[in-house]
C-alpha cells in the first residue's frame, strides 16, 4: 500500500530527523547527476551507432540466428530468408528495432552512469546483456506464436511486448542489480 499524501514518509522524516530539506535537495542533485550521465551516455551511443552501421546489421543477423536456432532446438523447421523468419505460414521480419540492442544500451548506460565499482558495472552489463538477449528471443517466439495462431492480435501484442514488458524487464534487471549492489555494500561495510 502507498502512504496517503498527508502522511508521506518524507514529511514524517522531516519532522523526526530535522534537516530533511538539504537531504532532499541532495537526492534531487544525485538524480539529476545520474540523468545527465545517462544523457551523455546516450549521446555517445547514438554517435557510435551512427558511425558504425555494421552494429545494427550484426544485431539483426544475430537475432535472426538466435531465434531460428531456438526454434530448431524446439523441433520446429523455420526457413530464414535474409532477415525474415518463416514458420507455419507466418513471416516475421526482424528490423533493427526488433533486436535487443537498444534495451541492452538502455540498461548498460543506466548501470554505467550509476555510482558503483567498475567491476560491478561490468558484471551487471554482461549479465544484463545476456538476460536481455534471452528475453528478446522469448519475445520473438511469443510474437511468432501470435502471428501464427492469433494474427488479429499481433499488432497489439507487438506494441505491448515491445514497450511495456521490455521496459519492465529492463527496470527489473536494474533494480536487481541495485539490490545486489546494496547487499554487497552492507556486507563490506
Amino acid at each position: 500500500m502507498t502512504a496517503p499524501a498527508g502522511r508521506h514518509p518524507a514529511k514524517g522524516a522531516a519532522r523526526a530527523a530535522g534537516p530533511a530539506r538539504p537531504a532532499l535537495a541532495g537526492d534531487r542533485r544525485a538524480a539529476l547527476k545520474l540523468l545527465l550521465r545517462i544523457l551523455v551516455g546516450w549521446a555517445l551511443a547514438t554517435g557510435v551507432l551512427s558511425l558504425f552501421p555494421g552494429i545494427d546489421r550484426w544485431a539483426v543477423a544475430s537475432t535472426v540466428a538466435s531465434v531460428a536456432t531456438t526454434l530448431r532446438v524446439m523441433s520446429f523447421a523455420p526457413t530464414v530468408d535474409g532477415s525474415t523468419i518463416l514458420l507455419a505460414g507466418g513471416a516475421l521480419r526482424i528490423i533493427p528495432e526488433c533486436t535487443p540492442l537498444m534495451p541492452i544500451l538502455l540498461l548498460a548506460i543506466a548501470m554505467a552512469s550509476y555510482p558503483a565499482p567498475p567491476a560491478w558495472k561490468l558484471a551487471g552489463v554482461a549479465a544484463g546483456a545476456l538476460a536481455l538477449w534471452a528475453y528478446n528471443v522469448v519475445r520473438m517466439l511469443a510474437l511468432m506464436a501470435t502471428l501464427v495462431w492469433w494474427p488479429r492480435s499481433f499488432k497489439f501484442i507487438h506494441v505491448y511486448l515491445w514497450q511495456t514488458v521490455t521496459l519492465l524487464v529492463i527496470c527489473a534487471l536494474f533494480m536487481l542489480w541495485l539490490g545486489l549492489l546494496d547487499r554487497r555494500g552492507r556486507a563490506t561495510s
Partner: protein
Amino acid sequence: MKWLLRFFLWATVLAAPCWLLADAYHHALAAATLAALRIPAPATAIPPPDIPASHVLGVFAAMCLASARASWPRRVSAALLGVAGLVLIEWATGVVAVAWAMHDVQGPAGPSFLERLTDNVTALPAWIGAPVLWLALLGDAELPTQRKRRGAGAHPGGGPPRAEAHRPRAADR
C-alpha cells in the same frame, strides 16, 4: 519489486486507452507537425509508426503512478507534466524527422553518417523518453538504494550519510 508490479498493472490498464487513442493522437501530431513546417498536406501524409506514440505516454504515466515513495499529488503532477513534455518532444521529433526527410537525398552509397545520426536521434524518444523524464521528475524519490546505502555506510555520491537515510519506509509496507 512492488514498484515493478504496480508499473506492470498500471501499464496494462493504460495500454487499452492508449491503443484506442493511437490513431487520433497520431493524426493530431501529424497535423501539428505539418502545420509547423507549413506543408499543405493532409495528416495522412505521415504514416503512423510501428509503435504508436500514444503508447509511450501510457508507459510514462504508468511509471509515475506506480511510484512507491512519492505522494499521490506528486505522482499525478509528475504524470501530467511529463505527458505534456512527452507530447512536445514527440511533436518536435516529428518536425525534425519530416524536415530532414524533405532535404534528404540519399546517395548511391546508402545513408550517410548524418542521415543515420538523424534517424537514430529521432528514434530515441520512443526508447528513452519515458524513463528519462521519469528520472527527472521522480528520480529523487525513487532511488531507494542510494539512501539505503548511505545509511549502511557506503556513500555512492561521495557525501556523508544523511539523516534522511533513516527515513521510515511506510510506503513500502
